[in-house]
C-alpha cells in the first residue's frame, strides 16, 4: 500500500522537476497605440513629426509597416486656438506643416492631435508642449581638441566642458553627440569600456556614431551652467557635432524614463509620456545651440 502511494508521488516529483518553462507572448497582450516622436523649435517650421503605430512584440518589420501615412494629424496653437493640419511627407516619412502661416514661438503652448485606424480600430491621442524660453547660448568650451582619454598632470582624464547660458524656466539639457566621420578605420578599438571588432562596428554603425548625455534639475533661473561630455561618449577619432537642447517637461520626462523600463526582477514599467488617449512616445519642444569638437588619437 505504501509503495503504491509513494511511487506515483516520486514519479510526479521527478516529472515536475524536469523540463522547461515556456513563456508565450499571447496576441491578446497587444493593444494598438499611436507612437509619436516630434519636436517643435521656436522660429522653425513644423517638420519631422513621426507618427507610427506600435506593433506586437513578435512582429517582423520586414512585413509590417509601422508608418501611419493616413493618420489625421493637426497642431493647435493654444493661445490663438488656430488649428493647422499636418501632412505626410513620403520623402522623410514624417508629418509636417506646409503652410506659411504658422511660426512656432517660445513660451507658447501647442497641442498635437492624432487620429488613426490600426487593425480596424479607430484610436486617437493628443499631447501639449510648452516651448521653452529662448536664451540658451553656448558660451564656450574648455578644449576644442582633445586626445582620446587625455589626462592632465595629475593623471585625471580631461573631459570636454561646455559652458552655456541657461534658458530661463528650463531645467533639463541634452547634448546630442554625432561623429562627423565614422567608419571602421577610425573607430577607437583600444578602449577600456568594451571589446569591439570591425564587424560589430559595421553592424551598428549608426548607434556607434551617435550618443547623448543629459543634465537635469539645473536652476530654472537665468544663469550659467556647465555640461560635461565623457570619454565614453566618443567612439571614433573624428570631428563631432554637439547639439545642446534646452528641453521642455515632456522631453525631459521622456528622456529620463524611456530606456530604463526593465526592473531588477525583469518586470517592465511604462515610461512617462505625457500623451493622453491611445498614444505613446514623445511630443516635446526645445531650444538648441551647437558646438563642434575633435577627438584625436
Amino acid at each position: 500500500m505504501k509503495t503504491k502511494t509513494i511511487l506515483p508521488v516520486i514519479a510526479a516529483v521527478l516529472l515536475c522537476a524536469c523540463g522547461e518553462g515556456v513563456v508565450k507572448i499571447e496576441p491578446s497582450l497587444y493593444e494598438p497605440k499611436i507612437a509619436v516622436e516630434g519636436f517643435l523649435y521656436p522660429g522653425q517650421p513644423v517638420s519631422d513629426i513621426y507618427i507610427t503605430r506600435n506593433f506586437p512584440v513578435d512582429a517582423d518589420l520586414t512585413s509590417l509597416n509601422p508608418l501611419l501615412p493616413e493618420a489625421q494629424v493637426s497642431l493647435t496653437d493654444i493661445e490663438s486656438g488656430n488649428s493647422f493640419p499636418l501632412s505626410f511627407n513620403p520623402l522623410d516619412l514624417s508629418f509636417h506643416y506646409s503652410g506659411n502661416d504658422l511660426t512656432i514661438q517660445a513660451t507658447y503652448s501647442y497641442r498635437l492631435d492624432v487620429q488613426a485606424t490600426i487593425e480596424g480600430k479607430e484610436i486617437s491621442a493628443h499631447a501639449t508642449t510648452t516651448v521653452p524660453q529662448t536664451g540658451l547660448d553656448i558660451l564656450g568650451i574648455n578644449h576644442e581638441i582633445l586626445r582620446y582619454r587625455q589626462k592632465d598632470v595629475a593623471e585625471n582624464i580631461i573631459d570636454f566642458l561646455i559652458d552655456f547660458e541657461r534658458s530661463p524656466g528650463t531645467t533639463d539639457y541634452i547634448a546630442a553627440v554625432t561623429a562627423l566621420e565614422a567608419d571602421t578605420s577610425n573607430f577607437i578599438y583600444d578602449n577600456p569600456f568594451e571589446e569591439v571588432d570591425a564587424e560589430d562596428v559595421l553592424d551598428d554603425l549608426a548607434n556607434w556614431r551617435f550618443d547623448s548625455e543629459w543634465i537635469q534639475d539645473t536652476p530654472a533661473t537665468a544663469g550659467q551652467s556647465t555640461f560635461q561630455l565623457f570619454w565614453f561618449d566618443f567612439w571614433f577619432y573624428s570631428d563631432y557635432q554637439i547639439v545642446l537642447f534646452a528641453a521642455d517637461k515632456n522631453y525631459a520626462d521622456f528622456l529620463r524614463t524611456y530606456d530604463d523600463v526593465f526592473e531588477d526582477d525583469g518586470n517592465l514599467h511604462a515610461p512617462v509620456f505625457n500623451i493622453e488617449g491611445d498614444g505613446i512616445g514623445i511630443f516635446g519642444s526645445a531650444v538648441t545651440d551647437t558646438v563642434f569638437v575633435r577627438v584625436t588619437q
Partner: protein
Amino acid sequence: MKSGIFTCFLLLGFCVHAFGQNNASLSGFVYDEESGEALIGVNVYIPELQRGSSTNVSGYYIIPKLPQGDYTLVCDYLGYQTYTSKLSINIGEQKVHAVRLASGIVEGEIVEVIADSIRVSRKLYEKDISKVQLSARQISQIPQVAEADLLRSLQTLPGILPVSDYSSALHVRGGSSDQNLYLLDGTDVYNPEHAFGLFSTFNTDAIKHVEISKGGFNAAYGGRLSSILDVNNLDGNRERFEGKAAISLLSAKTTLQMPLGSSGAISASIRRTYFDQTIGRAIDDIPDYYFYDGNIKAFWELNPQNKITVSLYGGRDDLSLNFNNKSTDKAGLNLDWGNSTASIRWTRVFSPQLFANFWLTGSRFSSTFDLGDLLAADERNKVTDITAKGNLEYHHSSKWLLKFGFEQKEIRTSYKQNFPGGKVDVENRPRHSVAYLQNNWRPTAAWDIELGLRYSSFQSKKNFQDLAPRFSAKYRLSETINLKAAAGIYYQYLHRIPQTFTSDIWTTSNAYQDQSRASHLIFGFQKEVANDYQLEIEGYYKDYGNLYRFNPTFITELEPGGFQDNGDPIYTNTKGIFNQGDGYSQGVELLLRKDVGAVTGWIGYSYSDTKYQFDAINDGLEFAPRHDRSSTVNLVATIDLKNAWRSLNGNLMQADKRRWTFGINFVYGSGQPITLPGSAYLAGDAPGAPEQGINYFPSQFNGYRLPYYSRLDLSINYRREFKSFTMEPYLQVFNIGNRKNVWFVQYDFTDQKSDIDTINMFPILPTFGVNFTF
C-alpha cells in the same frame, strides 16, 4: 509620556514582585550536558500537575506557584534525550534546579506516549502561533546552492517564499522582503545578504537556535509588518575545547569554542569565500569577488543571578570588475558592502519569578560603490542603529505571566551619491522609543490567553505615535489537538529602496512617507498524528495600509533641496521615491512535520492570495505583486539510510559511527506574475539621432503568470566518527532535473524582429565539500 509608561511598568513589576514573594516555584537554566550551552525553547513539564513551560532566549524556565508535593520534572528537546527528575517542593520553597540534557544522536523510532515524556501536541501547544523553530542540524541537512544557508532553508517552509533562485530574501505570507525583522543575538541586521543575495550573513555553523514568526507575533516584537527572524549564535562550550571546520567549492569556514575559566565560554567563527582565488584567476571576464564574515560570542556567569554576554559580528563583500581587460587603459567598478553588529546582554534573575534581559546593541550596514576611472561618480549608503532595550518576565502564578519591556533606538540612515551633474545627500536621524506590556493568562490547563499592547513613538522630520494591540489564544481541545488564534496591529517606520546588484537603501518615515501598517488575523489547528508527526494548519488574513513601493519613474518627480555653486542640483529628500498604496494577503498553510526517527523532515503546502492597490500603478486597479505564488508545495526529507533500513526490517535504530544520510528538497510553486511587453514602438533618444530605436511598452501590470516553478535538490552525506574527530564529506546537487525555471524574459531587436530570450534561474549545480568536527 515614554518615561511615564516605563515607570508604570516598573512599579507594576515591583508590586507584583512583592505580591508574589511567598510562593513555591521551580526554576533554573537548561544546559547542554556536553557543552554547557544554555538551550532555548526546551519543553519543561510536570506531568502530575499537567503544567509546563519552555525555556526562554536565555535558557531559563520557571514553573511558579507550586503546591507542596513530590513531582516529576520532564525536559524534552529535539536532538536530546528526555530528562526526568524526581523533586520535592516544600511550602514557599523557591527551588532552583539546573537541568543538563544529554545529547541523543538518534532517538528510538517508536515514540511511546509514557508518563515521563512530553507529547508532541503539548510541545506544539507551548509554541506560539505561526512560529517555526529550526535547529542548526536541520538547516545544514537541507540541500542548497553550494552550501547550507539559513535564509534559503527558511524558504522551504510554507508561507515563506523567495522571489527567485538569485535571492535569499524572504517574502512571508505575501509581505515584501523589507517587512522582516532580522535579529542576530538581539541586534537588528538590516541587509543580511552576501553575494547579491545568494547567501545570507548567518554562518550556519555558528548558529545555536533559530525561530521565525510568520505573523501574529506578540507585543515584545514590532517595527516590521510581516515576520521576525530571531537568530541566536552559540554561546561557547564551557566544558572543553570544540571545533568545526568546513571546506566547500565556495568557501572555507571554522567555528571554535572553548571555556573561559570556570564561569564562561567563548565561541568564534570565520568564513571566507575563495571564488576570487580559484575560478576568478582562471577566467578573465568575471568580477573579482569574495566575502568574509566572522563572529565572536562570549559569556561570563558572574553568579547564578547575573550573566553577561557579548556578541560581535562583522562581514564584508568586495567586488571589482574591469570592463575590458584587453585594453591599454583600464576602467571598471568597485563595490563593497557589509554589516557589523555588537551587543552586550545582561541576564538578571532578580528572583525566581522576575527574570530580565537588558541589551545594548549596535548595528551598522554600509556600502560603497565607485566607477573608478570610468566616471567621477560614487555612492555611500549607511544605516546605523544604536539600541538600548530590556525584556522582563514576571511569573506571578501558574495562571499569570507578565512580560514588559522597553526599547530606545537611535537610527541614522544616510545615502550620499556624487555624479556628474549633481549629488544626493539624504539623511534621516529618527529616534524610536517603544514600551510594551503583555499579560499572559492561563485560566485553566487548557487555555492560554495573551493580551499585549505596544506603544511606539517615532520622532523623525515628522513625529508618529502608535498603539499596537496584540492578542493570542491557545486552547487544548484534546490530548492531541490544539486550537490557536492571534490578531494584532503592526507598524513599520522603515522603507526600502531596492538597488540593482548592490545592497538596498533604507530610509525612514518622514515628512514624505508615513508609517506603514498591517493587521493580522490568524487561526491555527494543530494535531499530533501517530505520536510523532506534527500537523499544523493555519489560515491568515493580513490587511496593509500605507505600503511604500519603489517608484521606478521617480526621476521625473525629484526636487532638488538646493544647488551647488556650479548650479548642479543637490537632492536631499525622498519625495517621489515611493508609490503609496494598500493591500491584503490571505491564505492557508499546511505543515506536516516529523522531527524524530530515521526519516525526518516536512511536507508543506501553502495557498496564498496577495493583492496590492496603488493609485500610481495599474491605473489604480488591484494587482498581485511579483513575489506572489498562489500555491506552493515543499517536501524536505533527511533519511538516515542505515536506520531507515533497520526500521523497514523491524529493527530498532542505533547510533552509528558511520552514517549515510540522504537529503531531499523538492519545491513546486505556481507561476509568479510578471508584466510582459504588450507591444514595441519606434523612438529615438534625441532629435537628430540617426535612427529610431525599438522600445517596449508594457501590457497590464503583472497581468501574466510565468510557468510553474519546480526544483528537486538531492544530497548525500557520509559521517564517520573517529576517536578525536568526525568527518562528514557531502555531495549536493541543486536542481538535479535541470529544470529551466523562468525568471523573466528579455528582448533583443535584430534583423527587423524581436528575439525573445527566456532568462532562467539556476541550472543543475553539483557541489561537494567536507565538514569536520573535533
